[in-house]
């Protein structure tokens, strides 16, 4: 039954068939974009590495051999060892889990929150819109990193608090985008049709408005991932994110700082991991934007 022709049929008979067809077409367009594929490969690699970290890492990420401390990169330790004799490669591999965890948690908190606020503001309009968007604009014109720092300072260091701080300062952009999206179809006839069936506002928003805003939100989230990773690493670097001995990349760079002039690899290696992963999300996000949300290109 599931053939190419069936998936790409111009007259899909079920919702599933049309959704599969759409997904297939999107994938095909995305596949033609070489850089986006590189990005996708990097993101998939991150997922795999995070999933199989204990099996991929050649050594323990937390226990080291002091006799082996501060070894330069070699065949035994591809990225060298740190000040406690731990294998840096193993720590970077395990660090992928922490990075992925932070990024996912932030996305799961900030994006739905922003989406909901934007959709509600756009759908109801009037004073609800004015209050919610006023709030959004205030957040948007404040420095994100500094606010996140202040929040962490109040909540105390740690991964959970770092996630909360980044999410609190991250939602406004999704609210803006979702609202703009809603305004484009708020008065369209298909919504009138649903309204005439006496559907509740909740039902309309849940089943008709939100699904239409999803693609632009997904694009934006993917593009924001790099920023979230950098912010999380920055908090780690300042000692406010993940705490030792967790192998968080930013915290690793921070510890390597003490030896930077003589043992450069301790601080630089985790940096390469951050750069590659951020780059992967950037490239994938750019590609997704071209496919899903071409008009969003000007929104940077």
């Amino acid at each position, binding site marked *: 039954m599931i053939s190419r022709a069936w998936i790409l049929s111009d007259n899909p008979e079920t919702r599933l068939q049309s959704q599969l067809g759409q997904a297939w077409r999107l994938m095909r367009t995305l596949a033609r974009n070489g850089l986006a594929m590189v990005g996708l490969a990097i993101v998939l690699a991150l997922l795999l590495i995070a999933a199989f970290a204990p099996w991929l890492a050649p050594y323990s990420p937390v226990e080291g051999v002091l006799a082996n401390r501060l070894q330069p990169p070699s065949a035994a330790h591809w990225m060298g060892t740190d000040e406690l004799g731990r294998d840096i490669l193993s720590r970077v591999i395990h660090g992928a889990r922490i990075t992925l965890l932070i990024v996912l948690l932030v996305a799961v908190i900030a994006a739905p929150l922003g989406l909901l606020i934007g959709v509600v503001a756009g759908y109801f309009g009037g004073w609800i819109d004015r209050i919610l968007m006023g709030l959004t604009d205030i957040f948007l014109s404040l420095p*994100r990193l*500094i606010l996140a720092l202040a929040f962490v300072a*109040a909540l105390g260091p740690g991964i959970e608090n770092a996630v909360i701080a980044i999410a609190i300062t991250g939602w406004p952009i999704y609210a803006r985008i979702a609202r703009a999206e809603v305004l484009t179809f708020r008065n369209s006839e298909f919504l009138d049709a649903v309204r005439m069936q006496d559907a509740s506002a909740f039902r309309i928003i849940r089943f008709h408005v939100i699904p239409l805003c999803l693609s632009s939100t997904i694009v934006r989230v993917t593009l924001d991932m790099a920023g979230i990773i950098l912010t999380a690493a920055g908090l780690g670097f300042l000692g406010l994110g993940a705490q030792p001995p967790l192998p968080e990349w*930013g915290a690793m760079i921070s510890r390597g700082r003490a030896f930077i002039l003589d043992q450069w690899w301790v601080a630089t290696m985790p940096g390469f991991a951050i750069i590659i992963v*951020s780059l992967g999300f950037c490239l994938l996000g750019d590609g997704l934007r071209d496919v899903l949300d071409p008009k969003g290109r000007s929104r940077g």
Partner: protein
Amino acid sequence: MTRLLPALNLLLTLVLTFLGLLAITFFIGRVVPIDPVIAVVGDRASKETYDAVRAALGLDDPLIVQFGRYVWQILLGDLGVSVSTGRPVATDLARVFPATLEMATIGIIIGVALGVPMGVFAAARQGSWIDQVIRVIGLAGYAIPAFWLGLVGLVVFYAQLRWVGGPGRIDLFLDGMVPVKTGLLLVDSAIDGNGEAFQSAVSHIILPATILGFFALAYIARMTRSFMLEQLSQEYIITARVKGVPERLILWRHAFRPIRVQLITVIGLSYAGLLEGSVMIETVFSWPGIGNYLTTALLNADMNAVLGATLVIGTVFIAINKGSDLLYWLLDPRARI
């Protein structure tokens, strides 16, 4: 009168945004798990003393009254006393702020001086090598952590090549030799006529400022490129070609002129972004600016200092943002119909 309406509107959002910032710092100050009363009376005080101090501190008043008092206090310039330095936070901030201003300003100058022409040429020769370079730089600006680039820069240009001075604003043996007038070390040493100090200050500021400038450049070049591409596809560019205007003039006069105003906003945004980014860079370079002050305060849980620094950076950030909006409105003939 109607011509002034946008300006009034801008002023209103400015005030509201500032109040929003204050509300956030007020809120953060309230959720801190440290009980301010216990901090005063100690945890072995009796219930009566505790309640008396609590009332004296105004903590029994409704939140909105407390917030009003907080705003008033801030407006008077009272940011509280720093636990770690023992001085008023406002005094501390006034002392460290010029160092940040100096570095961010040189950073933005580098970013604009290189980023704008790069963006213009990339747009003029779409797909050429310079266009590719801008693309790579743009991506790098997104993906590279500033603090990491700072560390790598220190290793390469300070430790290995010895091209620049190391951490700090000036060589240690010159520290404190220049009388403070503006707080901007480059300016002060020039006023003082102290060539040695000036040279040392330049060699210290050049690396962190360039790294900050790199991030500004990445953003400015990318935005300039996309603005220019939009301009170059306009009809009036064809009109200019029909008139026989040389390409160089078409680029700078016909395409660049209309985007100058838009660029002001972009430059304002990235300048504000540099102030923010300086937190990381200052930590790496032990630069005695507001970022370093903030991170030190963070690690000491010195909340007055943290919130004070947040307020100052936030206020400057808002001022630059809204200021560039205002300039936009003043400078663009199309906005004033």
